[in-house]
């Protein structure tokens, strides 16, 4: 049956179905974000302050869609005010049904020397696949692949899964666009020692739960990096940050700009997230 016949018989063409599903997913996400916001609004209306964990969850939903999706991440790295390296990654993310945490498959697109390499991240289970040597190597979270950015910075993470949040107070701070914002200041403590950062100070917009700023600390309470979430754009139905500016804690002249583009809901099959599948992964 050709497409014309399908349409004449009332069958929905494939393109329509894809759009329809995408629209359904977008609607679902929008509903969840609005739901989280509504819950917070209700809490406020009845006089019960939203819990810190609820605020964090609502913020997570703004940073990341809940359905499987793909995004292109570009890292532009500066040392002493000079651009020294640019990397482009294709990120495919899918939340684990049980833990709620994202599992990520990352494909290196540029620079050319790294093109085709794959990083599979399932919690702390990290595998790097090199198409040249056909080898999958387990790596530790401490092994940085992209200069300053830790692996956890370039992948999708639900902070509410890994951290316990407590509300420290409310502050008005300058955001990444140098605009004043009314924020909640949350203190996030790692639930397990396995996560990249032991503690996080996290500023979240009081009105719309958008992430504004974060400070990441080591177990020895050293400031590892500061991040600003900015350039909010409507992506997949929600206003999301499309740029994160990461400033090194020890060397503030070491700056990484992490840009996100090409957001798209997409099927991320379970097989893609298996180590043994890495040699045969082929992105469309």
């Amino acid at each position, binding site marked *: 049956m050709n497409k014309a016949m399908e349409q004449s018989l009332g069958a929905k063409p494939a393109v329509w179905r894809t759009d329809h599903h995408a629209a359904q997913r977008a609607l679902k996400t929008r509903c969840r974000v609005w739901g989280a916001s509504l819950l917070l609004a209700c809490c406020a209306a009845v006089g019960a302050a939203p819990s810190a964990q609820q605020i964090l969850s609502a913020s997570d939903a703004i940073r990341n869609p809940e359905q499987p999706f793909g995004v292109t991440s570009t890292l532009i790295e500066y040392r002493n005010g000079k651009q020294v390296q640019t990397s482009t990654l294709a990120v495919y993310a899918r939340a684990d049904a049980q833990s709620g945490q994202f599992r990520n498959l990352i494909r290196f697109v540029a*620079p050319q020397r790294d093109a085709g390499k794959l990083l599979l991240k399932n919690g702390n289970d990290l595998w790097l696949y090199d*198409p040249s040597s056909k080898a999958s190597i387990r790596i530790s979270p401490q*092994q940085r692949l992209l200069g300053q950015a830790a692996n956890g910075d370039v992948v999708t993470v639900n902070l509410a899964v890994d951290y316990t949040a407590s509300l420290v107070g409310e502050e008005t701070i300058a955001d990444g666009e140098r605009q004043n914002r009314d924020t909640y200041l949350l203190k996030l403590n790692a639930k397990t020692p396995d996560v990249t950062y032991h503690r996080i100070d996290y500023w979240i917009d009081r009105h719309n739960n958008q992430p504004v700023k974060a400070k990441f600390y080591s177990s020895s309470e050293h400031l590892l990096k500061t991040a600003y979430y900015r350039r909010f754009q409507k992506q997949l139905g929600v206003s999301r940050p499309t740029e994160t500016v990461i400033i090194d804690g020890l060397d503030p002249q070491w700056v990484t700009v992490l*840009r996100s583009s090409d957001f798209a809901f997409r099927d991320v099959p*379970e097989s893609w997230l298996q180590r043994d599948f890495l040699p045969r992964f082929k992105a469309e």
Partner: protein
Amino acid sequence: MMAHWQMGRGTRMMQSTLGREALAPQQCSVAGMVLIVLLASPVCWGDDADALALADQALEPAVARSDWQIFTEGMLGHVNQRAPLDDIRISRASVDVLLDTAINPEWRFTLANRADWLGQDGQYEVVNTLKEVYVSWQAQPNAALDLGRINQRNGVALGYNPSDYFKVGALRSVVSIAPASLRENRLGVGMLRGQWVWEGGAVNAVFAPKLANQRQSAAFSPDWGASNPVSRYLLTSSVQVLPGFAPQFLLLGEQGQSPQVGMNASILAGDALTLYAEYSGGRSAALLPAAPVAWHSRLASGGTYTFANNLSLSLEYHYDGAALNQSQWRALWLNPADYWAYRSAVFNAQSLPTQQAAMSFITWRDAGFKALDLNWMLRRDLVDQSWQSWLEARYHFERMDWALQWQYQNGAPGSQYGALPQRHSLQAVVKYFF
């Protein structure tokens, strides 16, 4: 053919790489001043506003995605040999091509080929290595078939891979002793391979038939005699036993030999440490000719620790029960013909000449300077105490790498590294990515 490249069974190598594989028989005050100057400087950088202003200007380069990966490499080097041999000059030009393209959503074609022009004291030779050429059919999202020449690599260790069964005879042109180079620049094996993947595990089945009897030394020969000299099958299965722990089990069957079993396992032991072990065992002949068939175990185990400055230190222990112990190794040196024949066989199998060895590998990314990587490998034969060191400094530009490689080896006469004619070598390498 130039003698310095000639291997026992048709593999060529640069003189500078002759190590494991070789067979040829022949400020305080200043800091204070700097600190004072910096403190006195009117320039103030470092608040978040500066970083954000910088980010405002960030330009994103256009990235063209391609199914092709091509690079060329050039090398000039000098090899110092033990007396009475003279030093030699070496050079190399290489072209490496990888094509991985989807014919349609279900079918895929892969081609990987490398050509090396090897030069020594003004003479040149070409060696082409057809690494891979195969088609893949993704029948289902979790099931696939491949047919053709495939580089099927197993093993988790860095310096010695007893469960990497298809490494035997796979080297055709050795241009570096770096473990990554030995894994990349080798012949694949002609095979039919099936894979089935599920959540938390996978099964792979491989059948590799015999395709030819002898190795071919012609420059552009596909050399099926090297990759497929006997019929083999390999079954592998990975099963997730615990979260983060999914060992791989292997079973190899080979014409004329008892089945071999293998296992690969790795764990994450903290935020910065990975531990791994690789085993293979089965009844087989020892590497020494006329030795009786018996159960031999082979093992590689080690770990990698990464420091906060992104320096990674790997330590490994290697054991090969089919190799020679100290007394056998000493006795063999008394008969040079047998000695070099043995080393030729060991090299062909990419195995260990003696029973025990150790290796450390340090890799430091952005070593003090952005885009500068340092790599240092130290191998030690624990039976004869000889050792080999390989050091590389590599600087990355946008599309080009510059590297300096220095290799040194030392030991008593007859030892693994002391018997080699060359003492040390220096190479300058430039690599360009298209």
